């Protein structure tokens, strides 16, 4: 056994922050608004592809350098340039990071917004799950075969975090972990505020009975589009952080498994509950890391068991057990109360 505990903890916290963003996003879409988004990995991949594009094209531009094709013959040269800029020009590295987040959020949001209109054409919302599942996979296969985005199946490497210029690798990863956690905390706060507002009430009404919501003058299509914009923007931000954390963008990471992991997180935590989404993200991340570490240890000790596959069995069992014994999740959604309820309680007390 030879495990670097600090590094493991930093990695765990970073993964948790990213998973939390994905879970909050899906919880808003499905948990609160009832839109079964089975294309979560696709929306996350939008962020990753955005990072690949900005780190290979925008970064040299911001540093005053000319663009070098990151694929093919000039691959090594382009990689060297990226790495030099990120190590020596803090302002450019940070600026590029912020711009990447913004672009990813906007692009992800717009694609999510447009996707929501597909729902209008489908007779049942569960068909949307299939459309997104298949559509996301189609885009993934397209990107894998189309060079300009991420050099096709080769992927793009050398996408360092925004703190590579610090020099000390561990300090840079601690700062990155803190940044990820800060973003996750801010998103959690935002999602809580959103859910406990009249907008949250409207989302839950649409989730429960869209026909009646429509009959009460609510523009159901627009509300869905709005929540898909928000959810997809958050997923794309998670995608940027995911790519920066790995330092590598490849289409192989944004597969159905990623989507299903996020689904397990929100079902385990409690659908519609933001705190539940956080708890689900934490439990699944810890299990994921533990199985990964165990797999490595098994490998080193020469045990012939591919332990990585155990996680799929584990997550599947968790899902089944939760659905059977605690379908409301570990931290169930509380009945919604806006300040209006406190107002009436006060009114009653005064009377």
């Amino acid at each position, binding site marked *: 056994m030879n495990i670097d505990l600090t590094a493991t903890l930093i990695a765990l916290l970073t993964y948790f922050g990213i998973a939390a963003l994905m879970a909050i996003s899906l919880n808003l879409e499905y948990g609160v608004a009832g839109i079964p988004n089975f294309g979560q990995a696709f929306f996350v991949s939008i962020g990753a592809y955005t990072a690949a594009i900005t780190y290979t094209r925008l970064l040299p531009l911001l540093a005053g350098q000319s663009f070098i094709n990151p694929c093919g013959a000039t691959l090594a040269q382009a990689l060297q340039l990226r790495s030099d800029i990120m190590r020596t020009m803090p302002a450019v590295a940070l600026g590029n990071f912020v711009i990447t987040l913004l672009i990813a959020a906007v692009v992800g949001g717009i694609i999510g917004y447009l996707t929501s209109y597909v729902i209008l054409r489908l007779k049942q919302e569960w068909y949307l799950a299939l459309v997104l599942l298949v559509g996301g996979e189609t885009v993934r296969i397209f990107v894998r075969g189309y060079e300009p985005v991420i050099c096709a199946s080769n992927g793009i490497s050398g996408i360092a975090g925004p703190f590579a210029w610090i020099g000390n690798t561990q300090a840079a990863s601690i700062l990155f972990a803190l940044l990820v956690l800060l973003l996750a905390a801010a998103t959690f706060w*935002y999602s809580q*505020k*959103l859910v406990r*507002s*009249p*907008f*949250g*009430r*409207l989302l*839950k*009404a649409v989730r*429960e*009975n869209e*026909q*009646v*919501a*429509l*009959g*009460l*003058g*609510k*523009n*159901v299509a627009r509300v869905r589009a*709005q*929540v898909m*914009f*928000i959810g997809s923007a958050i997923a794309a931000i998670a995608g940027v952080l995911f790519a920066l954390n790995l330092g590598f963008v490849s289409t192989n990471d944004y597969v159905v498994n990623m989507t299903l992991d996020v689904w397990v997180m929100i079902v385990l935590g409690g659908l519609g509950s933001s705190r539940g989404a956080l708890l689900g993200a934490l439990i699944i991340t810890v299990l994921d890391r533990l199985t990964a570490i165990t797999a490595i240890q098994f490998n080193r000790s020469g045990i012939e068991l591919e332990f990585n596959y155990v996680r799929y069995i584990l997550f599947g069992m968790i899902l089944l057990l939760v659905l059977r014994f605690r379908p409301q999740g570990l931290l169930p959604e509380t*009945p*919604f*109360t*806006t*300040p*209006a*309820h406190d*107002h*009436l*309680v006060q*009114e009653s007390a005064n009377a």
Partner: protein
Amino acid sequence: MLEVQDLRKEFDGLQALDGVSLTVPKGQIVGLIGPNGSGKSTLLNIIAGTIPPTSGQIRFDSHDITRSSADDIFKLGLARGYQDASLFFQMTVLDNTLLPVKQQRGEHPWYAPWRRVWNAEEQTNATSASQRLSQVNLRSHFNKRASDLSGGQMKLLEMARSLMGSPKMLLLDEPTAGVAPALALDIFRHIDTLCREAGITFLIVEHRLEMLFEFTDSVYVMHMGRVMAHGTPEEIEADAAVREVYFGE
């Protein structure tokens, strides 16, 4: 207030509505009766914009609403109730009541996270919701989930909820179905009060004829997708053809 002209609806070769015309004058309570399958619910669904007609015209408050969407029709002031109370059962009584309020700032995702922006408006709405709930004796239940109410209370909540959108007219589909007789009378008294005091117009589908006849100004009788008779409750009661199709006499 509401004018329906020569409305037709065909479902896969079945003529559900076959040239229905009716008029509901402002400030009146008009009844709509007929045996099961005569097209009453289809008519209400079409008027409310839930399903489109095959042909014909509907005018409400001098607007042509024939092909308008349900949310636009509601915004014009025409609200509907459903046969089985269609509440948001997982939400509280108060949230159900607050939902239909038009143009809430807090319903916009830009403003939603900033409570300061919408709190005052929400409190004003809560106060008027509280008054609506008092009118139907549900004020003390505001914090309960809608699913915890009795069948009759659900109907009353549905009515209170419709009123929060400040409608000019309500379409009610069997407002007393599955409700104890005493509470059913209560519901009709509320309807009567709302009509007289708030000037709200009603079109009501109902099977409790004795109650309907007591409170309505006029009654339409539908049979096989057509209007077969129209008149005052007394005229309808005395109509031999109506008695034949409706009561089998």
